[in-house]
């Protein structure tokens, strides 16, 4: 059937584009000076975080303000066993992922009884609770000053591992959102009642998306702790719940590559502006406002609207 083959070629284009981006990132390590290699490593980890956030905001239509909880859960879940139990990094990583997945599963049960603005507020409260808990258990977490882990990862290996995590997450989330399951999430975003009346349980699908998102956040947090050998509760603060929102909105909510683009732009905007002035956040803020005026749906979201409808 002509239609089916038309959709096939779109499919090749999509996978080609994403594999191309990953390939480009792979080449980047040979060109970048050491300092920027470190910056891009961070960008890749935060992009993984943003991908996880985008799964919820962009595809399921849920705006969480507490996702730092899951990033930090992954971070502490992987970091504390290394520090106290002497676990090796490869074993600590799944502990962090599992920790944040369990956290997301539990928080999701009460939080997903709400949607819209209420969901944002409930998640904000859970996020803040998590932040305060890191302080409450200060004797264990050393939250106020941060924990250095006894790990040493060479920068190039660090880059490789971050790229591996990002690559797997990008292709994995692309696969999820293009699967029948992902289509239900988009259905819930577009029209909850219609999707419900097509036989899908809104709570169940949102909950699964929430757990997947939480686990992926945790993976990013755990990787950050293990690769940079540092655990600190700044990553549990509300700032790190707002960052993913900012990244995803800049790059384009509900686009597959938007999170990467958003993180890269915001990170380098901060880099450049902080070299110019101490009031760099003002400059960054002004730049972001201009950007959103030109691209109201994020950069990739607006590009898709202007002619690239095949963009996932």
């Amino acid at each position, binding site marked *: *059937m002509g239609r089916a083959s038309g959709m096939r070629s779109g499919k090749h284009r999509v996978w080609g584009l994403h594999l191309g981006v990953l390939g480009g990132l792979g080449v980047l390590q040979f060109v970048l000076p050491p300092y920027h290699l470190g910056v891009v490593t961070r960008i890749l980890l935060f992009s993984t975080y943003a991908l996880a956030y985008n799964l919820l905001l962009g595809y399921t239509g849920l705006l969480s303000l507490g996702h730092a909880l899951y990033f930090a859960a992954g971070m502490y879940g992987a970091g504390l066993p290394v520090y106290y139990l002497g676990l090796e990094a490869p074993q600590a990583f799944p502990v962090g992922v599992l920790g944040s997945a369990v956290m997301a599963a539990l928080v999701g049960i009460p939080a997903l009884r709400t949607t819209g603005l209420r969901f944002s507020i409930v998640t904000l409260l859970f996020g803040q609770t998590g932040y305060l808990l890191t302080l409450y258990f200060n004797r264990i977490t050393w939250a106020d000053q941060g924990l250095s882990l006894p790990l040493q990862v060479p920068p190039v290996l660090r880059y490789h591992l971050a790229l591996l995590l990002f690559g797997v997450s990008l292709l994995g989330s692309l696969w999820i959102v293009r699967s029948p399951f992902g289509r239900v999430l988009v259905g819930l975003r577009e029209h909850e009642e219609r999707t419900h009346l097509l*036989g899908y349980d809104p709570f169940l699908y949102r909950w699964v998306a929430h757990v997947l998102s939480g686990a992926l956040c945790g993976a990013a947090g755990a990787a950050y702790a293990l690769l940079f050998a540092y655990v600190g509760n700044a990553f549990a603060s509300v700032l790190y719940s707002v960052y993913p929102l900012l990244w995803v909105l800049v790059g384009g909510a509900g686009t597959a590559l938007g999170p990467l683009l958003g993180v890269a732009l915001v990170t380098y905007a901060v880099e450049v502006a902080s070299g110019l002035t101490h009031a760099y956040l003002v400059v960054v803020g002004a730049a972001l406002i201009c950007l959103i005026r030109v691209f109201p749906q994020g950069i990739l979201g607006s590009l898709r609207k202007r002619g690239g409808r095949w963009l996932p």
Partner: protein
Amino acid sequence: MRPLLEAVKVRRTFGGLVAVDDVDFRVDAAEIRALIGPNGAGKTTLANLLTGRLRPTSGRVYFEGQEITFLPAHRRVQLGIACTLQIPAVLRGLSVFENVLLAVQRAELRGPLGFLRPQGETLVVRVCEVLEAVGLLDTWEEPAGALPYGHQRLVELAMALALRPRLLVLDEPTQGLSPEEIARWTGLIRRVAQKTTVLLIEHNLPVVLDLAHRVTVMDRGRILFEGTPREVEEEPAVQRAYLGAGG
């Protein structure tokens, strides 16, 4: 014969208002049943109690002998009750194709694993089948929200049909349509009814008299009369409550 759907003394109140007042209602398999009545008679509320969008204050609902009174709407869909809404509900930002695909995969895929595999050709073929049946195949690529009102109703019908329902509940499907569109709908419903039981909530009396095997007339939360279209036309109580009052 066991009815396909049976409501026993269902009642639904909103604050002090009794929208559906201890109604007994049954629909037999393979019929086209119309539910008519003046505005505020409780038709849509009764339909919502059957599809699960609302829970009754008291009373019970059975589908094929199984009690479904407290089943959520999505479980009822899986049992075979599909519906279209008074105000057409489509996923406006998605293409017509994707709208119908979301419904098709519900009926055709089984188990959590089925939902993680990418779509197969069978789903695409089935979407095309359904779109062909309602005459929307040519607009498959367009965003559903950009279609004219009448076509959005057809998209909704296509989604409902894709679920392969045993019972199809249509809430005022011809509201806001042109005479040509209404004629097209009448033909469509007749064709659909060869395989599916249809419960039709309708204001347009000629459509009802033309299509329905039996007609139920509601007024002020109660069932006033039930009979063939001919009996309904001749019943004085119906004329007073509905036709005379100018519905």
